[in-house]
């Protein structure tokens, strides 16, 4: 009987090995074929509806920026540059009338030519449906076509962030055919003017974009998102890979040619590998601990200042990211090297002064009400820094109720002003300060004081770049004085590309035009 079992076992084992070898050979051939004409990009997950206007998620914009285009975009120094517009707009002396000329010969992926009517309808859709467009809408008097390739935007009052908002690729003023702008629902067909056209979406499997042969590129040396765009690779394939270690394994094995958002602690696995180039994305984002300025104990600004005094942002960042090359203890909301960087107005950051916090607690008459802090383990770095914050606050005399929730629950609860006192989130780098969510009085946290309104209005109405920077410094000073939130510091993103990928430009929202596969 042992003989029998052994025979079966050996035969089965042999057949199994042969089968697996056949499968390995078959799969290997397929993979090699696919890699010749396509680039596989491993993303953090499933994006959901690919509507860049309604949705503000970074993942959606990383994909859709290849399909849809805006009138303007950003260059490498985060200055606004034309994309579908033919040059920068003419702005009237009172800064209320923008006259925009469109590039001729631009076609949508359905073959139709882009006209001013399409642009006007797209901008109206953006004003009605996009969170960023809604921010602009109160300032807009009228948008109208001026011939086939011209349009005007008439404002009620000067609004300096307009061009930056028209340049963003998420919550984007994406230009689509007029016929597609009629519905208020998210887009279900994806027709834009970009260098890649939508080909296929298999949820949880891949999104395929193929080269648009009728693409009309802007001219000029490529610089950031601006300048000439050439689709050098035939097909882009975005593959959702939620498990970060699988993304690392996939780039190491050569299965992916680009992998986004990798854990910093995995950098040693990527270093020294000839087939892989690790990428550190700077600037990338900043973690925030947002206080409830509207209700609960932290509606008292003195208590928020006490929390501000208690926190050790350096310890929070170290706990969250470990490797110092992936974070910087930086209080300025804009990092060094960006136009709005300012150190002087950072007046209360990384103090970790329990004594000062205790004094402020007494001054505020704090009666040990529990401070409900919401955090989530879905973003490990937020969870780790919330543990340090909890300890800092308790050391200073706060009673802390740390609530660990899943991200969907946190997003829901933060809309209820009575449900929380602080929550952790993060903000991706945005080139225009008015896009920072905490400055929006409707955003959870509800920072909405008269002083802030006055400074914010002046900042938004100022069109002179130098004077805008001065206004921004005042706004940042107020941020540290009124403490609606804690900017914990700067953190950087780790991504990786195959050594075969050349011509790649490092940006927070990776793009793949002008990229070659060697």
């Amino acid at each position, binding site marked *: 009987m042992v003989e029998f079992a052994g025979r079966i076992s050996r035969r089965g084992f042999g057949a199994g090995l042969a089968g697996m070898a056949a499968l390995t050979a078959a799969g290997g051939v397929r993979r090699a074929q696919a890699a010749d004409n396509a680039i596989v990009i491993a993303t953090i997950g499933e994006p959901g509806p690919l509507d860049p206007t309604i*949705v503000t998620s970074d993942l959606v914009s990383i994909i859709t920026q290849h399909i849809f285009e805006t009138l303007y975009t950003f260059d490498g120094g985060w200055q606004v540059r034309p994309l579908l517009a033919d040059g920068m707009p003419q702005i009237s002396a009172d800064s209320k009338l923008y006259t925009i000329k469109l590039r001729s010969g631009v076609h949508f992926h359905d073959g139709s030519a882009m006209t001013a009517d399409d642009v006007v309808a797209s901008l109206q859709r953006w004003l009605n449906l996009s969170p960023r467009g809604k921010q602009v809408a109160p300032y807009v008097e009228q948008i109208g076509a001026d011939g086939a390739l011209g349009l005007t935007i008439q404002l009620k009052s000067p609004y300096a962030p307009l061009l930056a908002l028209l340049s963003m690729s998420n919550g984007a003023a994406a230009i689509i055919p007029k016929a597609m702008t009629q519905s208020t629902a998210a887009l279900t067909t994806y027709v834009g003017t970009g260098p890649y056209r939508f080909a296929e979406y298999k949820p949880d499997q891949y999104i395929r974009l193929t080269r648009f042969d009728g693409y009309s590129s802007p001219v000029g040396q490529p610089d950031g998102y601006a300048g000439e765009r050439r689709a050098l690779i035939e097909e882009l394939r975005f593959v959702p890979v939620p498990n970060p270690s699988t993304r690392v394994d996939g780039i190491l094995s050569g299965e992916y040619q680009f992998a986004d958002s990798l854990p910093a602690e995995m950098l040693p696995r990527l270093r020294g590998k000839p087939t892989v180039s690790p990428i550190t994305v700077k600037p990338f984002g900043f973690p925030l601990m947002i206080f409830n300025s509207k209700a609960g104990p932290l509606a008292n600004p003195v208590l928020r200042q006490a929390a501000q005094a208690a926190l050790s942002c350096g310890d929070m960042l170290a706990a969250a990211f470990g490797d110092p090359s992936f974070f910087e203890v930086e209080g300025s909301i804009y990092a060094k090297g960006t136009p709005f960087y300012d150190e002087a107005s950072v007046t209360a950051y990384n103090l970790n002064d329990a004594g000062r916090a205790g004094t402020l607690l007494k001054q505020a008459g704090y009666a040990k009400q529990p401070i409900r802090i919401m955090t989530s383990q879905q973003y490990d770095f937020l969870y780790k820094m919330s543990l340090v914050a909890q300890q800092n606050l308790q050391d200073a005399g706060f009673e802390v109720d740390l609530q660990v929730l899943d991200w969907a629950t946190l997003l829901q609860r933060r809309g209820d002003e009575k449900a929380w006192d602080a929550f952790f989130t993060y903000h991706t780098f945005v080139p225009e300060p008015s896009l920072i969510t905490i400055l929006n009085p409707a955003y959870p946290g509800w920072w909405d004081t008269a002083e802030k309104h006055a400074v914010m209005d002046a900042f938004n109405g100022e069109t002179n770049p130098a004077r805008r920077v001065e206004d921004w410094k005042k706004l940042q000073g107020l941020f540290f004085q009124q403490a609606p939130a804690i900017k914990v510091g700067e953190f950087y993103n780790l991504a990786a590309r195959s050594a075969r990928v050349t011509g790649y430009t490092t940006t927070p929202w990776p793009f793949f035009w002008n990229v070659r596969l060697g």
Partner: protein
Amino acid sequence: MLRYLARRAGGLVVVMLLVAVIVFIIARVVPGDPAAVMLGSSATPADVAALRAQLGLDQPLPVQFLLYLRQIASFDLGNSLFLNRPVLQALGERAQLTTLLTLMSAGIAVLIGVPVGVISAVKRGSVIDQAATAVSMLGASLPSFWVGLTLIEYLAVRHAWFPVAGWGDPGDGLLAHLHHLVLPAVALGLPNSALIIRFTRTSMLDVLQDDYVRTARAKGVRPLGVVVHHAFRNAMIPVLTVIGLTVATLIGGAIVTETVFGLPGVGNLIVSAVLRRDYPVIQGTLLVISGIYVLINLAVDLLYAAVDPRVRF
């Protein structure tokens, strides 16, 4: 037999109705809002409220429940809030992968578990038996995600014999798809084979001590014949139950394995749906999986009759 089947079918309807109610309640009791997830973290409460209204999520729960029941009655599981397609279609697209993965994992678990269990019982107390016991204990203790990550590291990253993750390229045939499933199936099947080894061994040991086995040996039946024709078939009845339960467990295990290997299967669909609070997908998928569980149990019960002629319905 027909009466038995009719009775079980009636029970199936009642179970499914109960599952439908429980799943609806669980999905709604858990906090979280699909509209907030869909719009991203930059959205304001007003934006979220507007989308909730558009998706019909602002309607009272009893109204939503009645709509849901009406859909189920017409065999419609509704539309996914995220995927822009009916739940049934989304499930259908992923069913092939999960079915293949479950079958391959079950095959691996059975092909390892049953022979090793039989040999272990026949060679009771030997080195082979002790090794099989040790390996099965170890296998039972290893989580499938750890096995998966280890297999990826050694067989996919270092040797590139198998793909790291995914379901293949567009246009791939069945062979290439199966190639993508080898590592996940091993990761899932290996730990589950341990339970089958244990049950097969125990069941065989019981049967090998029965009188009819002793009689067969006394009659001069060859040892192989005793094991195969007399002991093995009778020992399989409790093992079949375990295999049935293992297949059901594999469907659950596929949730973790599909996530680790980035496989677009039903498990991944559930995880994504829960994270996004995609209520129709959560409800529809759990309803279908519950139905499959019940059907597997029914199939196992019917198999008893095939294995043991004494069993009649």
